[in-house]
């Protein structure tokens, strides 16, 4: 097998050049990489918008959203108007042990109550703790980035979330 030298020696230059260039490692616990605003890290719940219409829990492929609510009488919008019946949310849990981050619930919600946030550091020792309830989801709300501008030439569909 003729030893064509150039091929083998030429190959050696690539690792040597990489050795001289800066490395790409991000030392995670000390430095943190900054994620894209659209990253699907965790789902945040804006409780005021939610009317417990159960659409998200019905369309979730993994069956991991559990909702309980009850009806209440609420003061009429305009005084003298009729008494209104309002859905009050008692329980809104998302089980992140089952969730596959597909985002169908965020899209299907007609009242814009669910948002994506790029937060990802919520790992637990016990899997049961991955069941985030209403107020934990509420806390994620501040980490939701505001909607970023679209690329040139894009026509934003009406009422884009």
């Amino acid at each position, binding site marked *: *097998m003729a*030893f064509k030298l150039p091929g*083998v020696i030429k*190959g*050696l230059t*690539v*690792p*040597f050049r*990489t*050795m001289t*260039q*800066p*490395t*790409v*490692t991000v*030392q995670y616990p000390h430095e943190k990489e900054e994620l894209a605003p659209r990253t699907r890290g965790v789902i945040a719940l804006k409780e005021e918008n939610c009317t417990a219409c159960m659409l998200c829990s019905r369309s979730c492929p993994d069956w991991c959203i559990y909702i309980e609510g009850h009806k209440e009488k609420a003061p009429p919008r305009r005084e003298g108007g009729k008494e209104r019946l309002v859905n009050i949310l008692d329980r809104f849990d998302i089980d992140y042990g089952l969730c596959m981050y597909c985002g169908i619930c965020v899209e299907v919600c007609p009242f814009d109550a669910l948002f994506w946030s790029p937060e990802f550091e919520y790992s637990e020792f016990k899997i049961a703790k991955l069941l985030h309830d209403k107020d934990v989801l509420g806390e994620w709300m501040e980490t939701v980035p505001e909607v970023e501008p679209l690329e040139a030439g894009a026509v934003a569909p009406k009422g884009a979330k």
Partner: protein
Amino acid sequence: MMNLLFASNGIDIGWGTTTAIKTAVVLGTIPAGALILGYVFLLKMMSHMQSRLGPMDPGGFHGWFQLVGDGMKFLQKEDIMPEDADKRVFAMAPIVVLISTFLVYVVIPVGPSLYVRDLNVGVFYALAVSSLSVIGVLMAGWASSSKFALLGALRAAAQLIAYELPLLLAVVGVVMQARTASLQGIVEAQHEGAIFGWDSIGLPFIFTQFIGFGLFMIAAQAELTQPPFDMPVAESELVSGYMVEYTGFRFLFFFMGEFGTAFAFSAIAATLFLGGWTLPGLDMDAEYMKIVGPIVLFTKIMLIAFLMFWARFTYPRFREDQLQKLAWKYLIPLSVINILVTAAFIVWI
């Protein structure tokens, strides 16, 4: 070696103590050499070549404690033996491999009088002893009663034996040119030698024996089963060849054996081809050489080891039939031609 050191200031310590001190020093250099080579090349250089940082946290500055920590981890690991393994042979195998590494250090000169024993057959003794590891590898492969280990051991045996020949023939040129086989003699020959009358930098044999140097490096790479010759421990097929059943401190022996032999071979290569522990301008027998000598040899070892590990991280591995063909059809004829050319030079010029 020590009484020469102390004799100069009048204390005469007996032969027994000097041998004890020499053995202690050699016992110390094997793990130290393995750790240094392992850390500098396997951890830091390999990672920077792959554009990553390598260990940073252990031991604070650049993770120097990583390999020491690994060593301790291996020590406290449970020593498992496969249930139908041949117990005694299984236990003896790593020790045989390690013994062959120790014996090589006997002849490596580090300073004017700093060597354990200056045998006049130095070079051939070193290379002969280093082939003892073949027995250890076979013992490990057969004893651990696992298919992968068996395959690995058979491949290792075939490869190590095939590359003994080019390893030795590559060195014959150097011995002829230095007219002595003793390593100390070779170092002196390179110090006084001259290239066609111009002797300001002495004659490191790499200039005249560059074919020999190339052959020696390739054969050494094969002896250490490092890529491109790491068929016996091909991790993508045999996981880790003959070492697959070993855990705990026995695996540590193998690891130390591997890197210790790498350190030893780099030392031999440095001594034979790069002028050993001397630098051109320095006077060989001066007092200070006892300190400067080891440092010079260490830097040369690092240089040679850099070449070895650079090839180790870049090249894919040969299939064993190509490996054998390379040895028998290309390396051995080339080394014989090299010997003839050297002989011609010596006789006519």
